[in-house]
C-alpha cells in the first residue's frame, strides 16, 4: 500500500536518509525502531510532504506521491501524528479534532460519526472536549494528536514516538488505542523508542541506523535478533 524506495532526504546540505526502502502493506502494523538521530522523524516528514526528498520514490496504492504537498498527502489518506504533536494550542479539543477532518471531503461528510468513534477510543478526551488544548496534560495532548489524525479517516496512520514523556499507564492507553485502530483495518507505521512493546505490537518491523534500514523481519524475529537485543534491549 505504502512503498518507499531509495529515499534520500535531509535538511539543506545535511543528508539524513540514504537510500531508504520500506513498505507497509494493507492493514499491516509496522514498527520502525532506531537510535536518536537515525532519521525516523525525517522519514515521516518526507512521506507526509513537509520535506522534499532529493531522490527516491514514494508510492501509495500504486500511484507516485513523491514530493507532493502535505495537503495532497492527507487527501490521499495518509495521516501523520508528529513527534511534537503540533496541536492548535488555543482551540478546544473538539475544534482540534474537527480540523482533522476538514481538508478531506469524504472525512468531513462523516465527521460526526468519526468524532463519536474517537471519543469512544479515548474516553478521556470526551470529558475534556471543551478544554483548551494547551491546558491538557502531555498524555492527553498525545491522544488529541492521534485522534485528530484519525478524524481524516486515513488508510495509513503514521505515529512518531507516541509514548515519549508519558507515564506507563498512559503509554498502555495509547498502545491499546493503536492496536484497536489497527484491528479496524487501518495500516499503522509506528516509530518507537519503546522497543520491546512496539515489537510485540507490530506484525513486522524495521531497524533503522544512520538513515538506512539495517534489519527487518517480523516483530517476534527482531525481538530474538542478537543485534536488536544487543543494541536496543539491553537493560
Amino acid at each position, binding site marked *: 500500500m505504502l512503498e518507499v524506495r531509495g529515499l534520500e532526504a535531509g535538511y539543506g546540505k545535511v543528508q539524513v536518509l540514504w537510500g531508504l526502502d520500506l513498505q507497509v502493506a494493507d492493514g499491516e502494523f509496522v514498527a520502525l525502531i532506531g537510535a536518536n538521530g537515525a532519521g525516523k522523524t525525517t522519514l515521516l516528514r518526507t512521506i*507526509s*510532504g*513537509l520535506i522534499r526528498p532529493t531522490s527516491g520514490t514514494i508510492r501509495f496504492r500504486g500511484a507516485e506521491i513523491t514530493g507532493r*504537498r*502535505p*495537503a495532497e*498527502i*492527507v*487527501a490521499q489518506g495518509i*495521516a*501523520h501524528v*508528529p513527534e*511534537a504533536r*503540533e*496541536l*492548535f*494550542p*488555543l*482551540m478546544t479539543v473538539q*475544534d482540534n479534532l*474537527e*480540523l*482533522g477532518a*476538514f*481538508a*478531506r471531503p469524504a472525512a468531513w461528510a462523516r465527521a460526526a460519526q468519526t468524532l463519536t468513534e474517537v471519543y469512544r477510543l479515548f474516553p478521556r478526551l470526551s470529558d475534556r472536549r471543551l478544554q483548551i488544548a494547551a491546558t491538557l496534560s502531555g498524555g492527553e495532548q498525545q491522544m488529541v494528536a492521534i485522534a*485528530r*489524525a484519525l478524524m*481524516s479517516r486515513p488508510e495509513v496512520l503514521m505515529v512518531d514516538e507516541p509514548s515519549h514523556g508519558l507515564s506507563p499507564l498512559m503509554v498502555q492507553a495509547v498502545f491499546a488505542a493503536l492496536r484497536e485502530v489497527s484491528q479496524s483495518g487501518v495500516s499503522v507505521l509506528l516509530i518507537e523508542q519503546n522497543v520491546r512493546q512496539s515489537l510485540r505490537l507490530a506484525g513486522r518491523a524495521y531497524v533503522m541506523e544512520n538513515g538506512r534500514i539495517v534489519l527487518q523481519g517480523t516483530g517476534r524475529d527482531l525481538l530474538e535478533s542478537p543485534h536488536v537485543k544487543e543494541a536496543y534491549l539491553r537493560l
Partner: protein
Amino acid sequence: MMDLFLQTLANALIQSGTYALASSGLALAVGVLHIVNFAHGEFLMVGAFVAYWLSVLAGIDPIVSLVPAGAVMFAASGVIYQASIRRVLLAPELNALLLTFGIGITLQNLAVLVFGATPRVVHTAYQLTAVTLGPVSVGVAPLITLIVSVALLAGMYAVLYRTGVGKSIRAVAQNRTGAHLVGLDVDRIYLLTFGIASALAAIAGAMVLVRIGASPHMGFGFVLKAFAIIVMAGLGNLTGVLWASLVLATAEAFVRTYVPGGGGAAEAVFFLLIFFTLVWRSWRTA
C-alpha cells in the same frame, strides 16, 4: 464643562473606529503570517486615492467606494504576495521588514509622481450636516465611518470565529506545521489573509478620505499609530486591538481638548503609550 467632556468622548469614539479598522489588518498579518507589514499605511493611502478618483471621475460616493477600494487592494496585495511576500516568509524576519518597507516607499513615491504631493479632499452633502444628541454634536460623515468600521470589524470577527475559513485561518496562525499536517492549504490561507488585511487598510483609507482627505504621505502617521495599537494589544491579539484603539483615541482626544496647545501634543500621545506599555510589561515580567 460636562458638555465638553461628552463631546470629547464622542470624538474619541469616532476616531477609535478608524484606528481599529486600520490596525486590525496589521494585527491580522502579524498574527497569521508573522510578518510586520510596513507598507500597511501605503495600502491605506491607495484605498483613499481609489475612492478619491472614483468620486472625481465617476461621481461615486466615497463611502460606497469602500467596496472597490477594498477590492483593488485585495487583488493588488495578491499580486504583491505571490511576487514577493511568500518568498520571504520563511527567511529571517528582517527580510520581510525590509521588503515591505521598500514596497511602502515605492508606493508613496509612485503616488507623489502620479498624483502630486498636494492633499486632496472630496465634497459630499453629508459632510456638512451633523446630528445633535443632547449636548453632543457629531458630523454625519464621521458617524457613517464609525458605523462602517464597527460593521466591518464585526464581520471580520464573524468570519474568523463562525466560519470554516475563519477556523482554518486561526489554525494556521496557531500552528503552521499542524495546519500542514491536517491538510490545510497553508499558502492559500496566507494569500487570503494578506488580502483581507490589505483590503481592510484600503477601506480605512476610504474612511479617512471622507473625514480628512487623501495625500501620498497620509499612510505614515496611521501606520505608526497602528503599530502603537498592536503593541498595546499584544502582537496578533485582535480583541486587544479594539481596546487599544479606544485607549489611544481617547487619550489623544483628551489631550487635544484639555491641554493648552494640545493639538500638536496629541500627535505624540501614541509614542507615550508605546513607552508605558513596554515599561509596564517589562516590570510585570521582571
